[in-house]
């Protein structure tokens, strides 16, 4: 899992950390069930306070992306409601494309060609 944060950005650090997790979930780097690093370890690695990482984790828990379990740390439980709507939209797109005789590969090519 790659984490990239910018300490000089006006975006809050906890939001940047939460975005990293969301990107990881979407890209498949963080599959459902994957355990995230302990807050203290990640905070040290990113040169941020442990509480900043915990705030990001809590934010993701409130969004339904993570769950906390005693002794097991924070784990990914779903892509979150925001991603669910994107996935649902993608399903509808695939269905529409299929009605017009287009395969997934054709859709991917069309999306890549879009500006």
């Amino acid at each position, binding site marked *: *899992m790659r*984490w*990239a944060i910018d300490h000089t950005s006006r975006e809050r650090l906890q939001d940047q950390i939460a975005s990293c997790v969301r990107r990881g979930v979407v890209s498949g780097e963080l599959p459902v069930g994957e355990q995230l690093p302990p807050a203290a370890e990640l905070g040290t*690695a990113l040169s941020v306070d442990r509480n900043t990482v915990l705030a990001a984790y809590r934010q993701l828990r409130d969004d339904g992306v993570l769950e906390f379990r005693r002794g097991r740390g924070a784990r990914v439980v779903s892509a979150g409601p925001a991603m669910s709507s994107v996935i649902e939209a993608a399903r509808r797109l695939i269905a529409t494309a299929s009605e017009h005789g287009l395969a997934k590969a054709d859709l991917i090519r069309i999306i890549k060609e879009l500006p």
Partner: protein
Amino acid sequence: MTPPPTADVDPYTVYTGRTTSWAMVASGCVGAVFVVFMGKDSNGSWSDRWFVVALIVVAIGVIVNVVTASSVRATAGPNGLTIHWGLVGWPRSTYHLDEIDDAEVVDLPWWRVSYAFWWTPKRTNCTLRSGPTVRLSLRNQRIVTITVPEPAAAVAALRKASTSRQTDGD
């Protein structure tokens, strides 16, 4: 450490990964159960007391091995490469960027996998599986081999951090 030729560097790009050896977990659990039940005779009662003590010691050893050597967490970035072993994150080691001469991805054959934390005068092995693995060459001539899920990403994070440090120093 040799930096890559890229210039677009984020000083806080960090890679984290965890590798778990489920074979180690399963074999450890099976071994512990087998060892404990060997202490019983055919009547179901415990046999010689010292034999039982020895079995308990062996069982504890197996459990400790599972707890400490079943998985490895690695963090690569501006602080160097940190590894935490097992369920409780111990033993742990940190190799700072200053100590690292080079980092590369090597293909580890199965007969060189240590399945635990191995330390020799010239090498440190923290490997749980064969295949692509991170290998660090330290400035003190020590070779450190560590299993991480995405070794190329870990090496890239170390090289970015090294480049960033050199850029900041100029």
